[in-house]
């Protein structure tokens, strides 16, 4: 082989900058839901009795189960980050998978909850709901909007976690381009065994070589940034539910 230099691509990664950006994004989510919490507070003030009654029609058990699911998913999320910090890639992937699974279960529960309400005719715009007092109409409007928007965020979160899981589960790899200064004999693996080519015959200027590592700290570091930031998003989704649960299911 002729002398060829592997150029390690120096990618300047700003971990703190990425973290600042994610926290800023979380603030926008806080304010987005904040508008809904404000609406909740306003209407609760207007219709205390109707809200009291409507709360009792929600299932505390399912709500509590969902709370437990999300709290546990937060645990597995942060453990997944901790595992990757310790370069325990396998554990990190497993925990991340569990996190996404718990999020999916949350959504399944939500589906059953909503279906039950639809079956009883308790949904915005329904004829049944039109017969209920104003405060209850507003309560259900808030209930579906708040849990709906939250559910969309859980769904997006599960999607993001799945993408990151796929990224972390692969062995870390980097592709580097090796320029060829002179005709070189290359062994290429084909279906019928090794094939030999002379580089000049094949008219190659350079060869892209993919390095597959058993582990690579630099790659893991970059992936850790993405995992941590995804974790921040996931935890915020959990925090929002921590407030939604008592306000919608418990207060009476």
């Amino acid at each position, binding site marked *: 082989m002729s002398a060829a230099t592997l150029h390690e691509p120096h990618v300047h990664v700003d971990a*703190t900058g990425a*973290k*600042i950006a994610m*926290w*800023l994004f979380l*603030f926008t989510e*806080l*304010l987005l839901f*904040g508008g809904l*919490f*404000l609406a909740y*507070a*306003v209407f*609760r*003030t*207007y219709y205390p009795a109707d809200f009291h009654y409507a709360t009792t029609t929600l299932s*505390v058990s399912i709500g*509590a189960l969902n*709370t*437990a699911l999300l*709290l*546990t998913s*937060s*645990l597995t*999320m*942060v*453990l997944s980050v*901790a595992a990757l*910090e*310790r370069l325990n890639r396998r554990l990190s992937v497993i925990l991340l998978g569990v996190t996404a699974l718990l999020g999916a279960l949350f959504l399944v529960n939500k589906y059953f909850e909503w279906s039950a309400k639809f079956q009883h005719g308790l949904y915005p715009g329904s004829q049944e709901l039109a017969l209920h007092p104003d405060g209850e109409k507003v309560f259900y409007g808030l209930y579906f909007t708040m849990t709906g928007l939250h559910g969309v965020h859980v769904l997006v979160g599960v999607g993001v976690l799945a993408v990151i899981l796929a990224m972390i589960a692969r062995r870390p790899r980097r592709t580097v381009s090796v320029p060829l200064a002179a005709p070189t004999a290359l062994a290429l693996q084909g279906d019928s065994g090794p094939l030999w080519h002379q580089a000049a015959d094949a008219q190659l200027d350079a060869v892209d070589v993919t390095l597959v590592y058993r582990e690579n*700290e630099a790659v*893991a*570091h970059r992936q*850790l940034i993405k995992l*941590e930031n995804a*974790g*921040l998003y996931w*935890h*915020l989704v*959990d*925090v929002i539910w*921590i*407030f939604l*649960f*008592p*306000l919608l299911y*418990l*207060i*009476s």
Partner: protein
Amino acid sequence: MEKKELVPYGTYIMIWFGLLVLTGVTIIAASLHFGQWSIMTAIAIATVKGALVLFIFMNLKREERLFKIMLSLALITMTVIMVLTFADISFR
């Protein structure tokens, strides 16, 4: 890798356990019917739970001061908005 010390797995598990306990407390407290105080109690407990997730799971406790300042800005803004809106709602 961050050169600071890693948080032990056990710490996270303990916090999780605390969160579950607090969830139980919230449910029990709600069934006790404190009336006006119910909502305060529920929000107080939720705030503690939220703070645990924020400071430990989201690592805010160990981050630079900048992050705590920025979060305070967002929370103060949210609070101010709610308070001023209620200057209208409460006094109509």
